[in-house]
């Protein structure tokens, strides 16, 4: 990103910023789903996919902290072998959600 961005780029940035609320909501939904007794590894994989996208897009839009936290959460998701043991993932996702909240 350059210092002097065009109105088009600024418009895209505004659009992305306004989408952070939805992204935070999606993360909350994933967390709630994983709290339930019938949580599955597929859901963890789905969450990982979401974090993967977030890590990429947030970094592109200069939200470096969200990008780094999402990447860490991805690694936590990679370690999950049993849905009964996802505390580390939940903490990592919670961190991402709280960072998202600071920009909403």
């Amino acid at each position, binding site marked *: 990103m350059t210092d002097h961005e065009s*109105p088009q780029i600024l418009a895209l940035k*505004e659009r992305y910023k306004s989408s952070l609320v939805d992204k935070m909501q999606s993360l909350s939904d994933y967390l709630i789903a994983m709290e339930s007794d019938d949580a599955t590894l597929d859901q963890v994989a789905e969450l990982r996919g979401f974090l*993967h996208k977030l890590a*990429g*897009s947030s970094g*592109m839009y200069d939200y470096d902290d969200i990008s780094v936290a999402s990447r860490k959460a991805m690694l936590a998701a990679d370690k999950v072998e049993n849905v009964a043991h996802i505390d580390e993932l939940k903490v990592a996702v919670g961190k991402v959600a709280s960072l998202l909240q600071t920009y909403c």
Partner: protein
Amino acid sequence: MVETSLQQHINQQLFEKLELAYFCVDQSMQIIDASENLENYGYTGVVVGANADDCVDFMFGLDAYTELDLPMVESPSGKKVSVSLLPRDSFLTVLISSASAEADQRQLLQQKANENELLVEQQIKLMKQLENASEMLEQKNVQLEEASRLQTSFLSGVSHEFRTPLTSIIGYTNLVKQALQSAGDDGSESDKVQHIGAVQRSSKHLLSLVENLLDHGKLDSDEIIVRPKETDLAELFNDVELLLKPLSDGKHIDFIVELGFEQPMIVVTDDSRLRQCLINLLGNAIKFTDSGSVRLTAKLSDDFLKVGVFDTGPGISQENLAKIKLPFWQAADTGKAGTGLGLTITERIVELMGGELEISSELGCGTQVSFEIPAPQLDAEPKPVESQMLPFKQAKILLAEDDYDIADLIVMMLSERGYEVSHVDNGELALNALENQEFDFVLMDIHMPIMTGYDVLRELQVKGIKTPVAIMSASAVESDRAKAEQLGCFDYLIKPVEIDDVIRIMNLAIDQRA
């Protein structure tokens, strides 16, 4: 009692002067001596031989041995008297004197005490009233502050909501204008280009007003932060000159820039805020000057940047000069549109940067605005290679990315650099596009629906399509990179990708292919 005639005379004088009367009683309270003037106080029965208990009411129950003062006794004549009982060896002298002076004195004191009490009461009442008024003012103040906060919050909210669509309008009209200019090289589309230009100018004007409102809101809530960094002052001033020259040209006035330094002049300052101040001041100067010139001067002295903006406009009256920095204030008779915030914002920003904005003007003599801010000078160094503009190679690029946030941004950034970019949002479409069209370079995500990036790479190998493909992924896992390279990708970029990196790799890929 033996007394000389002189003593008798003095006593007589004193008695008269002090209106003293007396009588003496023995231990059985029988009167043994009495002055004649006792009658003045109404003690007519007090004569030698009489019993004091019987003829003097205040003597009832008293003894002849105890010294005693009785102030403010009412005598039979109605006068207030003071009585002193002075026991001596075998008799008691009772002195009676008028207490009217004392009574007057007491009355006066009482009156003063009453007046004082009244004054204290009045003071308490006034204090209470003042306290009430102060409380009311405080409440009003809180209400006004809240109203001001709500107003600022509302303005900021509305401005923010306006900003997004406005930037879109400007961005998309720019694209339409470019398309029209390309299509109508023969001049057939020139009318439309002009109309679009008018839309853009109005939108940009509206955007600048909205941004002023946003900045004002931020200044009100102390949200604006100055971030000093290395800045080439000469480059910044040249940029500002280029930006504003069309405005002065449009009004047929001279725009003179006098810089006391040459490029590069590296200092530490917040370039974007300094730019904002210059644009605001020069914008105002050009707006209000209909003939003559606008002159910008800048020089560095002892790590301070001194800036002056001089115009030959109509000038400002002393009355208006006092109000000119107030937010939203605009002279009624200028007929020039604006928010009335530019100068307020500039003044606050200059303050935040450690300086002070000074304005001097006279009606008919133009206006001079100046400020001085700290700008510590650094040794000029050549810019790092990374920030230099990369060489442009004409290229047609395919972007395969299912995340539209990323895709739109990359398409926009590459388009702005002059590249032709096609976008697809899944692997299957990417493969179809590569089978049917010629591309110079592919930028592809791994995790896409229908076909992944890996699948596409595999199919390209099978089909013998040699278009260079750079994979971009948020995964920094080495095995993912190895897998992509094994499938023949040209390079593997980790998201977030820098557009300069994309172009550098693309140039390399195009060179190698050539």
